[in-house]
């Protein structure tokens, strides 16, 4: 997870002037901003960019903010991304509907930039503390009907693909919508990033050797082998109790 200072915030809002204002404000605070001024752009962009937080306008031409929110919540790799809804409506009913539909926060237009900024900070703080504490015990994987979960203890290693990852277990391999970075961010102590493209379950390591003078390789209990980045060899050996 990024720290608040360099977190990535996606703004989905058709009012270009508001996008410009919010973008300037957040960038001056050190945030990275991903703007989307067309609601249809929101989902594919969010899936690729994996923002830490999404600011979502309700009233937009084409598909509205509620529909975008529904699609976000239905997409495994961004389903838990905090979402703040922006709306011109201010009745209690609307707020309740918004929060029950899966929004994490709700801001009524017009709002003060100070309040916007404070709420962004608070949401990020909240989601960060939620994620960093325990470490996930189960990995979500894509299943025939929605999502299935694999116990992390069954995992041999996880291989990073372009924007998802492949979970290798003794039973076979399964795709997950999470990116390798996300897994690493949420991983508990047993899972370790050993390479740009691999995370290994340290409990599954049964041996290690130098395949060549510069290539350090881990052998896992199912017979598979995983390379270790040169820069991480010392750290991996340390975690395995070798030095």
């Amino acid at each position: 997870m990024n720290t608040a200072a360099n977190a990535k915030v996606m703004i989905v809002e058709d009012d270009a002037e508001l996008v410009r204002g919010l973008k300037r404000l957040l960038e001056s605070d050190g945030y990275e901003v991903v703007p989307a001024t067309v609601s249809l752009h929101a989902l594919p962009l969010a899936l690729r960019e994996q923002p830490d937080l999404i600011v979502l306008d309700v009233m937009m031409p084409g598909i509205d903010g509620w529909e975008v929110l529904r699609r976000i919540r239905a997409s495994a790799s961004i389903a838990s991304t905090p979402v703040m809804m922006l709306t011109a409506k201010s009745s209690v009913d609307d707020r309740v509907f918004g929060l029950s539909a899966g929004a994490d926060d709700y801001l009524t237009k017009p709002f003060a930039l100070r309040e916007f900024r404070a709420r962004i900070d608070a949401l990020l703080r909240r989601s960060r503390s939620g994620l960093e504490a325990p470490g996930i015990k189960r990995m979500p994987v894509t299943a025939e009907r929605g999502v299935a979960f694999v116990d992390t203890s069954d995992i041999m290693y996880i291989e990073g693909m372009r924007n998802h990852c492949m979970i290798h277990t003794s039973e076979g391999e399964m795709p997950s919508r999470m990116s390798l970075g996300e897994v690493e961010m949420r991983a508990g102590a047993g899972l370790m990033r050993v390479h740009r493209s691999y995370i290994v379950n340290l409990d599954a390591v049964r041996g290690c050797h130098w395949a060549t003078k510069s290539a350090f390789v881990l052998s896992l209990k199912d017979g598979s082998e995983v390379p270790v980045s040169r820069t991480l060899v010392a750290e991996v050996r340390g975690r395995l109790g070798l030095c």
Partner: protein
Amino acid sequence: MLKTRRFALYSDVHGNVSALEAVYQDMDDAGVLERYCLGDLVGYGADPAGVIERVRRSGDPVVQGNYDRGVGGRLGDCGCYYATEQARADGQASYDFTSANIDDVDAEWLAALPVELRLEHQGARVLLCHGSPRKVNEYLLPDRTDSQLERLAREASAEVVCVGHVHVPYHRTPAPGIHYVSSGSVGKPKDGDPRACWVELVLGDAEVMAAVNDSSAAVVGATGVWLAAIAHRVPYAVDVEAAAMRAAGLPESLARAILAG
């Protein structure tokens, strides 16, 4: 006293990242923050994905160009008009290169762009589109008659029509109160000047117009608002960009075209 509003139009970047970056810098220097992109981000140039990335990150509203529609929808061609067989072959090579060099997320992004945007400033109605108010790939070249342009604007319920696509910047008033502004081209000008082009629009009162050097400045519709347009030309390393096109394997004629302007 009317409020003055300045905004920038830019279009037809056509995969040319160096020209786009020079234009963004020039707009920053000119202090114009409100910006609209009139389409055709990709095609012909060496880095279509790089242009999409930068325009997307800018947060500027974008209308869809014919090339964006062709590539975004994976339609097989860009809907462009080519005068000769050779131009058609080079055009197809460009389309294939562009399509192969943007991923599905970028293609979806292009495909979902709106075909027009509308602005309103103190009663003045502004339409932003790529080709013409009725067609994404219609060329409103400078030789169009006043009466044609006036009719198109009235049918579109706009007093100010802003277009890209022709790659030649102009500001003309085909009828009293009716304005047409062409944004020229960032990455592939066709008016003999290879420098990147963007156009600044100034909406304000008659007094403000006195300070703007535009002989076509005039009142908009029945409002008291005046409109002036200023074409900005920005030098950039066009030879480096042409070399990048050659290195990418794009047809020689396309590299020569950006060098000549």
